[in-house]
């Protein structure tokens, strides 16, 4: 049986991952001793009387003994064995996944997971993507990505960083074993239905006196999830989530081996950039899906599930900025460690919370069997990692002191504090119902208004910093030097804001928001332009070549500028839809028209027919006019899925840079003569949000592309002067 084979492979993978992790640890007894020594408060606990004290005395003796056990040759061969075992997990998980996909595509409804997420009427590509359409499958998908990334990272050349290897393997395999174990023992996608004397139930192994039970058809993927945005949104998010495990693994390796310089950061810089890219893009895709499918004219609702994916993004973004301070100034070492640890655990938390479900509340998860396991895992990893940081506290001291409040490092520090503040706000919002119930007995929750009010000023602060930070110098800046660099764009930003005030809006939030957007965009462009002009002069290039070469020479800096610009474009979209959304609703008869935001909308026709996969489609034809000029027709529709007994409302959209006309067909009954009911939104500027996300991709790819790798340059030079790299 294919499902049994899949189960077997998963079980083998679990033990291979365990073997790899344990061998990796044993290959480095000294590191293991470090872990024992770092156990929280072990000095005091050793003094405790009785059994508990003895346990800690034993770990202490064990650590002493382990430190004497170091044998370089044996260590190397064990680490190599661990590495090979780790490399075996990916082919195994690929095979298990292929088997699952085979079962999904071929309607093997006797398998519980297949029954839950597919149905006969679904097209093949949706059956394949149903792999991550349910909890069990998405855990397998997560494990598969994890092993792929871990394999990738162990395949690199390790010459100078050999001592990191066992610990990177250990962390990856520990994480992998947790997820594969979860898949094998609690959320197995290969469970099958068996009919016993007591009824039909899903089992891993066929119970005695039972027969296989095959349902006629499956439940099918929730129609709301049958959308291109939703098909690539989870893998994007997961790619981002899983990529963050690699920098975390290196951070732990650095803590255990005591190599707490910025080597681990340099080695994982690109990993955290790619992680950030996928995470950001995953979030945007989720927003786009909500905008296109959920039909409430919005893209983000501050739902606990959304916040769970947003929180690692916040710490990840803070991390992205603060590692630069460590690289340039040797400061914030402890902070960076804590940030990546926090990001890792928020990723695990996010995986747990976002795995499935269209509408869910925190309460629904508490009932799941894997909930307590996830929380235990998060608690263990958090305590162990923080204990290591405390153990290495002395080694993580800053090399320089911070002097000036306006220096680049101080501004980056403020940026970090603001990101953390937003994190605190989000976390507070999520746990507030729990804490208030605990202390006051009343169940209280906070809605989107809470997040908007509390985060609004913090986002504004971040935007302001985004404007001035690139102008400040490392070490020391004054108001004078900053002012000299920014007065031209600042004056221009004020002029633009005055024009907006005079011609478009008096809304105070909009004025502040648009001023900040103009401020950041102009300063960034001005900086870019100044660099290009300077290069133009020294290199005798024309302006555009100068821009290209400038970007190519310092990809990180200018990629960052492009990302900042893209964030501002997104901000334009968010300000537009949040502050100026217009809506109207009403029932129209054929050829009757209604008007909103300068558009005239005429209901022309409607038809009901059966779609290819059995859904019933009700499709309206609506003509759009502006100032008497015909602009085209839109087709808002309602798809009714009989298999899932659910309707799906698909808006008709007309997108321009100025606004988005978004028409929903609310209802139409063929028998009634009243006509059709529509809800119409005009969402100003919202398309800048989606455009900004595309520019974001460009910027982050520029920043993350391997530039002339200093390591390789060094390696070439190192052929002559070996001591250079050895001294590094």
């Amino acid at each position: 049986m294919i499902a049994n084979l899949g189960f077997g492979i998963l079980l083998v993978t679990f033990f291979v991952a365990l073997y790899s992790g344990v061998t990796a640890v044993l290959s480095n007894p000294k590191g293991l001793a470090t872990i024992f020594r770092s156990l929280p408060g072990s000095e005091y606990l050793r003094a405790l009387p009785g059994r508990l004290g003895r346990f800690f005395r034993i770990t202490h003796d064990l650590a002493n003994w382990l430190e004497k056990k170091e044998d370089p040759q044996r260590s190397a061969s064990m680490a190599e064995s661990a590495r090979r075992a780790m490399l075996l997990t990916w082919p195994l998980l690929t095979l298990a996944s292929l088997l699952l996909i085979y079962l999904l595509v071929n309607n093997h409804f006797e398998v519980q997971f297949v029954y839950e997420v597919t149905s006969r009427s679904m097209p093949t590509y949706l059956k394949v993507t149903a792999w991550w359409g349910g909890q069990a499958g998405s855990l397998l998908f997560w494990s598969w990505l994890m092993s792929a990334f871990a394999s990738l990272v162990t395949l690199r050349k390790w010459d100078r960083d050999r001592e990191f290897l066992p610990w990177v393997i250990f962390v990856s395999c520990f994480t992998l074993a947790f997820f594969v174990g979860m898949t094998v023992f609690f959320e197995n996608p290969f469970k099958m239905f068996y009919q016993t004397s007591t009824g039909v139930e899903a089992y891993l192994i066929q119970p005695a006196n039972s027969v296989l039970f095959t349902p006629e058809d499956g439940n099918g993927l929730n129609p709301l999830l049958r959308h291109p945005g939703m098909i690539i949104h989870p893998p994007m998010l997961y790619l981002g989530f899983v990529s963050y495990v690699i920098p975390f693994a290196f951070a732990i390796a650095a803590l255990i081996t005591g190599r707490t310089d910025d080597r681990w950061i340099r080695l994982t810089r690109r990993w955290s950039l790619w992680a950030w890219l996928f995470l950001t893009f995953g979030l945007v895709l989720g927003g786009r899906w909500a905008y296109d499918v959920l039909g409430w004219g919005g893209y983000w609702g501050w739902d606990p599930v959304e916040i769970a994916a947003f929180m690692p993004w916040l710490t990840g973004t803070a991390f992205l900025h603060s590692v630069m301070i460590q690289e340039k100034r040797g400061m914030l070492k402890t902070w960076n460690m804590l940030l990546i640890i926090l990001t890792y655990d928020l990723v695990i938390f996010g995986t747990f919370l976002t795995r499935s479900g269209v509408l869910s509340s925190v309460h629904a998860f508490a009932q799941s069997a894997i909930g307590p396991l996830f929380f235990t895992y998060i608690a263990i990893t958090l305590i162990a990692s923080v204990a290591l940081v405390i153990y290495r506290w002395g080694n993580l001291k800053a090399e320089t002191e911070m002097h000036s409040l306006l220096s680049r490092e101080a501004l980056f520090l403020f940026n970090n504090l603001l990101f953390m503040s937003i994190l605190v706000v989000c976390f507070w919002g999520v746990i507030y119902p729990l804490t208030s119930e605990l202390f006051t007995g009343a169940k209280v929750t906070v809605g989107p208004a809470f997040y908007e009010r509390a985060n609004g000023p913090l986002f504004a602060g971040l935007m302001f910093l985004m404007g001035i930070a690139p102008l400040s110098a490392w070490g020391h800046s004054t108001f004078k030097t900053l002012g000299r660099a920014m007065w031209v764009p600042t004056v221009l930003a004020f002029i633009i804001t005055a024009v907006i005030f005079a011609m478009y809006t008096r809304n105070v939030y909009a004025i502040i928001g648009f001023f900040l957007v103009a401020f950041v965009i102009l300063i960034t462009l001005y900086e870019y332009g100044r660099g290009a002009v300077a290069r133009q002069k020294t290199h005798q290039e024309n302006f555009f070549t100068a821009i290209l070469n400038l970007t190519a020479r310092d990809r990180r800096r200018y990629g960052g500028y492009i990302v900042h610009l893209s964030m501002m474009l997104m901000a334009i979209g968010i300000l537009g839809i949040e502050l100026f959304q217009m809506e109207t609703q009403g029932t129209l008869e054929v050829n009757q028209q209604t008007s909103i935001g300068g558009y005239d909308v005429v209901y022309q026709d409607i038809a009901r027919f059966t779609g290819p996969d059995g859904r019933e489609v009700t499709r309206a034809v609506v003509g759009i006019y502006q100032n008497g000029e015909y602009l085209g027709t839109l087709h808002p529709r309602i798809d009714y899925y009989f298999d899932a007994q659910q309707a799906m409302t698909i808006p008709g959209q007309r997108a321009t840079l100025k606004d988005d006309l978004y028409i929903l067909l609310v209802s139409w009954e063929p028998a009634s003569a009243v006509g059709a009911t529509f809800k119409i939104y005009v969402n100003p500027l919202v398309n800048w949000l989606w455009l900004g996300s595309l520019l974001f991709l460009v910027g982050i790819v520029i920043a993350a592309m391997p530039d002339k790798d200093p390591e390789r340059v060094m390696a070439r030079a190192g052929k002559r002067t070996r001591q250079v790299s050895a001294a590094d």
Partner: protein
Amino acid sequence: MKINKFVIGGLLILGAVVFLIANATQGASQYFMTVDELKAEGPDVVDKNLRVSGAVLGDTIQYDLSTLTLTFEVAHVPADAPEIETEGGLAEALYQATIDPSRARMTVVYVGVKPDLLRHEAQAIVTGHLGADGIFYAEELLLKCPTRYEEAVPEQAGN
């Protein structure tokens, strides 16, 4: 002196965040209540910002297309996870709520698009306020249908 600058800056940010959170919490709190609790509190909670969950009674759903006014009744379901568990899970609790005529019921009025998931035995989570007339005026309407997608075992043919 140099340290002080940063300490003061940090404290200012901390203070601002605490203020923002406190202010926003106060302004945007919604009280979670069950239909039973709502009936018990009566006029005390009129015009407070509330969030109530209940089981939708399919027969009572009315939708006036000319004004887009949606009216329906919800029956009391317990809010605590253990209580729901003793009733046999959310799907079962919702089912029990709809067939038990002794349960407290509440009329909900919502103006807007009728959600695709609104149907008999769905769990409605409504946000809004209770009017003096005892009708709940919802500004937001969320729906959950646990019966369909979380069903782990298929129905048996002829048992």
